[in-house]
């Protein structure tokens, strides 16, 4: 088997919002990962029934440790267990790191635009954290589209710095006196375009399609846009 299932153990967890929780996992001999990669988790019941889900890695490479942020989907099969019942010290089957397409090379000096919808921000956070950890000089901009202020995850780390620009877009409800009215992503949010920029877009399929169309129409180079689509929220999880 080319990529084996490993055993991970939960070492810590933290709430990111009312419905999202970060799981800190320890995996012996973890080979490390690139920002943007994901893992598959597998749960198996006593009767042999098993369910498998993919989760993006949220953390920068850090020895045998990795972090996943799981959004609770109340009707899901896996996320209620991971968010509510998965206890410190418990084992879980994990396969990874997975994916060589939707990854940011930390040595890439080109400007980067990260566009995330909802929990699509998770792999982009791994890129942002890696960028910060290695003190990359590549200009980085994060555009993060989220339903309402209570849904924002990683809120303490979304502060702009000299190299990092952060734009929050609220689609349903914005905080009082927020300069942009609540609404879906528009070309104004993604511009001005620059064909040299490497772009990563991650989110639900509808969000990724809309944002990608707008980026191409604005003049971003289609060949520099990398996308990752999540299933419709609620159908899996």
């Amino acid at each position, binding site marked *: *088997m*080319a*990529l084996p299932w490993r055993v991970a153990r939960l070492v810590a967890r933290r709430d990111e919002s009312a419905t999202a929780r970060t799981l800190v996992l320890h995996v012996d001999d973890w080979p490390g990962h690139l920002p943007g990669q*994901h*893992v*598959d988790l597998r749960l198996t019941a006593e009767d042999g029934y098993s369910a498998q889900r*993919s989760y993006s890695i949220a953390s920068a490479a850090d020895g045998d440790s990795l972090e996943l942020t799981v959004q609770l989907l109340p009707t899901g099969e896996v996320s209620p267990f991971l968010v509510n019942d998965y206890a410190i010290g418990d084992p879980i089957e994990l*396969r*990874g790191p*997975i*994916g*060589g*397409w*939707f990854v940011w090379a930390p040595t890439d000096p080109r400007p980067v635009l990260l566009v995330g919808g909802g929990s699509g921000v998770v792999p982009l956070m791994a890129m942002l954290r890696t960028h910060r950890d290695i003190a990359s000089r590549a200009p980085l901009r994060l555009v993060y589209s989220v339903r309402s202020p209570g849904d924002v995850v990683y809120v303490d780390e979304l502060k702009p710095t000299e190299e990092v620009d952060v734009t929050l877009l609220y689609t349903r409800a914005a905080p009082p006196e927020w300069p942009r009215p609540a609404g879906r992503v528009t070309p104004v949010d993604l511009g001005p375009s620059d064909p040299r920029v490497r772009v990563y877009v991650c989110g639900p*399929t509808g969000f990724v399609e809309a944002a990608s169309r707008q980026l191409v129409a604005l003049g971003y180079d289609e060949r520099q846009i*990398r*996308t*990752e*689509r*999540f*299933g*419709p929220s609620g*159908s899996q999880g």
Partner: protein
Amino acid sequence: MTEATYTDGNAMAGPLAELFSVDVSAAATTCAGCGRRSHVAQLHVYASGPGAVARCPGCQDPVLRYVRTPAAAILDLRGTVSLVIPLAASGT
């Protein structure tokens, strides 16, 4: 549900990593239907049935089909002319 929704070929990377020692999502495919070149990660993946069908983002023809049974993996590649898999150059 009015229309089946899709994700993309990034979701195939894990299942195919069971078979291949290289990452297949970064491989380039040429659609046998329309000739469009895509990376596997860019294919539209429909996984609501017993397996996954990865379709060309241009013409929607099936490029790659994958079913995992308890005892076997069935990979149908008739929709792709070729798979070009990036490898580290030897001797570097």
